[in-house]
Every structure is written in C-alpha cells, then in structure tokens.
C-alpha cells in the first residue's frame, strides 16, 4: 500500500478515513455544547462526526471525544522530508576521517542554555554512555568534548567557545513554554554571529524534542536535531559538514 500517493486514514477498512479527536470547549455541558463539538469536528473535515463522550469539567468547561470519518486526502508525494543527506559512520570511521583530514581533535562545546536544566538530551549525545545503544561523542577519540551542562548563559557559552577554539557548538532546548526554546536559539545564533567573523564561526547545532528539522534557517543555525536523534547521526553529520561539504571552509589550523 505504501506506493499509493493518495491515501486516507484507516480505521478497519481501506479508505474509511476514520479518526479520533479530543478537546475541551469553554462551555457548560449541555446539548448546545455537544452541537458545538460536532460543529468543530465538521470544520476539521470530520463528517459524520460522532460525539461519543462529553464530560463537564466544572461549570464552565466540557471535554469531548469525537470519532468520525475525515474527508481529507493525504497526498504522500507532497510530503517534504529532510532525509539524512550524509552517510552514517561508525565511531572508528568518523575518528579516522577527522584524524587524517584535520590532524587535531575536533573541538565540541555543548550546553543547555537559558534557564533550561534538562541535560538528559545533550548528555545523550555527548556522554560516553550515549543513547539508544550508541556511544556518545566523548567516546570518539578524535573529538574533544566540553559539556557545560545546564542553565548556561549565552555570553558564558560564547566566551567558552572562544577560549576552547570550538569547532562546533551543540545547544539543547527542552522547555518550550512561551516559545522559550525559539527565543533562546535566536539569542544564541545572533551572539555567535556578533562574536565571530563569518568564516570563523563554529558550526551551530541545536537540538530538542520540539524543534523541527526545517527550522534551521529561521533559527540561524546550521542544523536542527529533534527527538530520537542519536550520537552517531550527530557525529556523522559533523564529519560530513566539515569534510564533505565543499561550501564550508574550515577555520583554524587545518
């Protein structure tokens, strides 16, 4: 079935278009509220919409569960995916390329910036222990890894980067309430552009579960990694970006 370009959701028969939806409306629970729930489902393209559950939550709100057939078609050929555009390397392969091409260790500085204290994600990429069975970048002999940990301010990060002559900056952002992750990412990329001449700037990479890969340009970074990323993917990308990507001139004593 995977080669059909136009598909619909599948309940228990091909093409039945069935979906499940839940939401709250700021209305007391009565028939009108149920009608409003059906109206919303209809606007979402669900027709017929079965309001199968409605529960008052206090006097002002009602929670709904709706089932029904959605009339949209999904055009798989229109889906844009950022496919991995670099080969996956083993730690050995990656280290070998760095060693032969760079003749020094690649310097990686990582941090959680802002008030974010969720280090598990960046640690998953950097710490030896790694993630999903893959060792982290510390395990790579030709990578020098500095992990600054949690709640690092952007100025701290920039000055450490300069001090360590960082080739790559890895920043993690997990808290997203009030768009904190976007604002912090923008602050960070602007600060690096400020602090470095364009051709000397380290590679900027941001990661976290609520980013999308397509956001890189908008955030002013070179690459975005999202949920499920593994250290091997990050290492492979770094090697690719430095040594295969002709557009990028390596700064420092190559």
């Amino acid at each position, binding site marked *: 079935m995977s080669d059909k370009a136009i598909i619909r959701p*599948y*309940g*228990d*028969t091909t093409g039945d278009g*069935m979906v*499940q939806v839940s939401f709250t409306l700021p209305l007391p629970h009565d028939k009108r509220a149920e009608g409003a729930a059906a109206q919303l489902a209809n606007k979402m393209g669900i027709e017929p919409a079965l309001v*199968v*559950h409605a529960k008052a939550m206090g006097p002002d709100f009602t929670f709904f*569960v709706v*089932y029904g057939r959605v009339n949209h078609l999904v055009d798989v050929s229109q889906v844009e995916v950022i496919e991995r555009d670099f080969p996956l390397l083993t730690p050995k392969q990656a280290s070998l390329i760095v060693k032969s091409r760079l003749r020094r260790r690649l310097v990686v500085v990582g941090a959680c910036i802002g008030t974010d204290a969720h280090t598990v994600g960046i640690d998953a990429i950097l710490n030896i222990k790694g993630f999903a069975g893959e060792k982290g970048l510390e395990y790579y002999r030709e990578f020098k890894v500095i992990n600054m940990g949690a709640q690092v301010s952007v100025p701290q990060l920039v000055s450490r980067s300069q001090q360590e002559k960082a080739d790559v900056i890895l920043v993690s952002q997990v808290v997203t309430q009030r768009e904190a992750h976007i604002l912090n990412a923008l602050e960070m990329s602007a600060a690096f552009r400020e602090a470095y001449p364009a051709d000397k700037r380290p590679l900027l990479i941001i990661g976290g579960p609520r980013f999308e890969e397509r956001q890189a340009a908008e955030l002013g970074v070179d690459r975005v990694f999202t949920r499920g990323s593994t250290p091997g993917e990050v290492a492979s990308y770094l090697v690719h970006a430095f040594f295969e990507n002709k557009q990028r001139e390596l700064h420092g004593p190559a």
Partner: protein
Amino acid sequence: MKARSRPRLDVDIRTVKKARALAKRAGRPIVQMAKQHTTVSVERATLRLAGLSGADPDGTPWANRLLDAVRADTGLEHGICLPVWDALLRQDTRDLNRLAQLAAVGQVRFRIPEGRDAARAQAAARKPVAAGIRKIDSRRKERDRLIKRWGDPQQRPWIYLIVATGDIYEDMPQAQAAARGGADIIAVIRSTGQSLLDYVPEGATREGFAGTYATQENFRLMRAALDETSKELGRYVRLTNYASGLCMPEIAALAGLERLDMMLNDSMYGILFRDINPIRTFVDQRFSRQVHARAGIIINTGEDNYLTTADAVEAAHTVTVSQLLNEFFAKEAGLEDWQLGLGHAFEIDPAIPDSFRLELAHALLARTLFPDAPLKWMPPTRHMTGDVFGGYLLDGFFNLAGVMTDQDILLVGMMTEAVVTPWLSDRDLALQNVRYVVNAAGRLAEDFVPRPDGFIAQRCNQVLGESIDLLEQILNHDSGLLDAIADGTFGLMKRPADAGRGLEGVAKKANDYYNPAIALLDEKPAA
C-alpha cells in the same frame, strides 16, 4: 509454559462438594431428557459426519434438503440413519449427495426399514459415520502434532482476539496481523442473526453484519491462514468460532472436521439470549459436546452474557451456578477438565466502591472451584463508554485481575467497545496494554494472598453460599431446572419448555431410533 504461582483461597471443601452435588442433581434429569430426544440439527450433523456437504443452487444445504424430505415421509423420531441408508441400499448407491439431489426433486420415497433391512441399514450407516469420526480423530492428532512442532504460547493467560469484518477475505489478513501482534487465539465473530438460521450457510462469505458467517469453507480458509502464520511465528495460533444457535451440532461437526481449536458452546445461552426452545437446546448441546470432546476442542461457555444485562454484583452467583451446570453437562458428554473454558467477566460498575476487589473475589472463586479448567476471562463491555482513556485504564485493570487470579484465556478488551467495532489501532493498543500488564505484573499472584477473613475471602464465600441457595431453589421446582428456566430464574428471562424457536425441530425418539454417531462418540478414539 512457565510455572505459575496460584493465588490461594481457603474455601470449605465440603461446601464445594455440596455445590457440585446439587448441580449434578439439577442436571441429571436434563441429560435423561436429552437422551430421549433428537433434533433436526443432530440428524443433519450425522449426515455431515457421514460425508454429506454442499448446497443446492439457492444455497440450501443438501443436509437440510435431505432431512426435510426424509422427515416428510417418516418423521424425525426414528432418526435419519435408518431411512437414509435403507434408501441408499435400495437405490444401490453410496453417494449421499446424489441421494439428496434425488430426494430434493421427489425421486425417492423414504421408509423405516424393519427386521433385516433395519439391521443392514444400521450397518451401512455406521460405516460412513465412523469414517467421519475417524476424520475428526485425525484432525485432532494433526493438531497435537502441530502444537508439538510450533509450540504453545510462552505466557499465561493466552491472548484471545476477536476479528469481525463480515468478510472472510478481510478477516484473514487481520487475523494474521493480530497473531503477529501477539494473539494466541483468534475468534471469528459470527454475523448477527446466524444463530437463528436453521441451516449452516455454504462457502466463503463476504457479507456479514458485525461478524462473518460460520461456514465450513470459512473455517477451512481461516485455519489455513493461521497455520501459515503459526509456522511463521513458531507458535500454534488457535482458532475459535461459535457452536451455538439452532445449528450447534452441525457446526460442532464442521469444527471437528476443519480442526478448529475452541468453540463457544454454552448449555443455556441459546435458551436465555436467543429464545431457542430449551429442549432443542439441551439435545443439541449434548451432541455438540460429544463432538467437541472427541475432537479435542476446548469449549468456551457464555457466563459473561448474564452480566451484560444483570448486575455483576447481584448476579455473581448466577455465574457460578451456570459454571457448575456447564461443568456437569460437559463432563457427562465426555469433555475433560482441560477442555472446559468456563466463562466469566469483569463487568462490575467501576463506580462502586471496591469494584476491583470484588472482581478479584469473583475471579478467584472461579479459579478455586475449577482449578484445572482453562478459564476464560472476559473484558468490561457494559460500563465502557465513549471515554476511551478511562476505558483503556479499565481494560488494564481487567488484564491485571486476569494475571492476579491466574486466568487462562484472556479475551482482549477494546477501548472503543462503546464506539465502534474495533479498529486496527484499537487492537494494537489493546495488545500493548495486555503486554504491559502481563510483563510488568505477571507473577504478582505470588504475593496476592487474600486475608482469611478479609473482604475478598468473605465475598468469595458469600457468592458460593448464594450459589448453593440458588441451586436448592432450582431443585425445589417441580421439574427442576426446566421449570426454573421457565420461571425466569436466569437473567429474569422466562423460557417455558414448550415455547421458543426451533421446537418444531425436536422429536421424542421412537423405540427403534438409531444413530451410530452418539455411541461412536462415546468411545475413546483409537490412540
């Protein structure tokens, strides 16, 4: 299979013995009555065992056409075998299908042979019927062989999943997907209405309502599909259907012939829930159970159904009574303990206090009363609502009660129970639910020790006590169980012995009634 830790409950052995003795007293007259009658379906089943199959161009099975013709000439009370094999001998053909065709166009007259004719007809009938039973024996051996080859499920409870698209060709891939997803047993639910048909439809079918027709060809197709998947998975996946309704005996025979592994088969379900005549039901029951016993099929009884209409707390003892009766009837018909998939269900209103502890008590009572029976544990349905989140949680607690009380067959509950017939994703989520619970809490039964005088133990004893009271009440009726059923003892349904569907298909056996199947089925199969 891994060793299981059984939860412990002290019930008084004498009380248990008493309950069984009462059930026996209530059941014995019914067995007598069943032995004195026959039905159209028992006779058709005998024809099917003897090799009659297929249907006329309108879809009426030849078994029905032939039986109707015979009955018109000789009545039902002598059984089908004497007139049919007498006619075959006279027509000088062994071909039952040919005979049926001739009979259908009025080209044969039937009679009850007497003297040596009768003896010859009996001998002639015995042979093909015995051959049919040998075929069932060989399917049973085949099952044993395949289980040895592919293995049984790794865990208990076995996971039982329902498939119900109405179309056998959609059912097959869905059943295979379910097996790959972890199901150990696939049940193909029947179309609404089939149970009231007084014939078994023919061929592969694609148009059931909320279920797929039970036909010999559908049985064959699905069993073949599951054999393929069993091989792939290295685990024998069992197949279930329904030997229930007006054609119970015939479906049982077809199940034996097509190597089905379990069959829904309850002693009173048809009476209570389909308004089928009580005598018709009990006669059909006994024959179908003899077939199941011989075929090595596990029966699934339907006590869960009581709790979809009656309150699960108030009516808890009716489940126990029905289990005891089902046990008695089953053993009398030759089934062994390992074949008694007695049913019960997690249907207590989740809003009442201690509902989970009550469920544990009921489930534990069944476990304790029937330690060697493969109990079938049925999920919440009645109190499922459109709140699919709450439903998913309730199903999790159902699964937990199943593992804590060491149930054997777990029918997987669906969060969309109150919404739709299950979606692909509902089944997948439901299996994940079961897997989490079995994996995370599997052997918790080890530490579940109801306090001797605690809430759970007390509740067990209370339900057992009420069961004994109910059995005594039944015995207080003039003609025992039959009167009790007529009085509305079960599920408030009044079902008099002289009313209900299918009564016209019952006959009291004449003195010269002959049917080799019944005696043959009682013999042990050759090893």
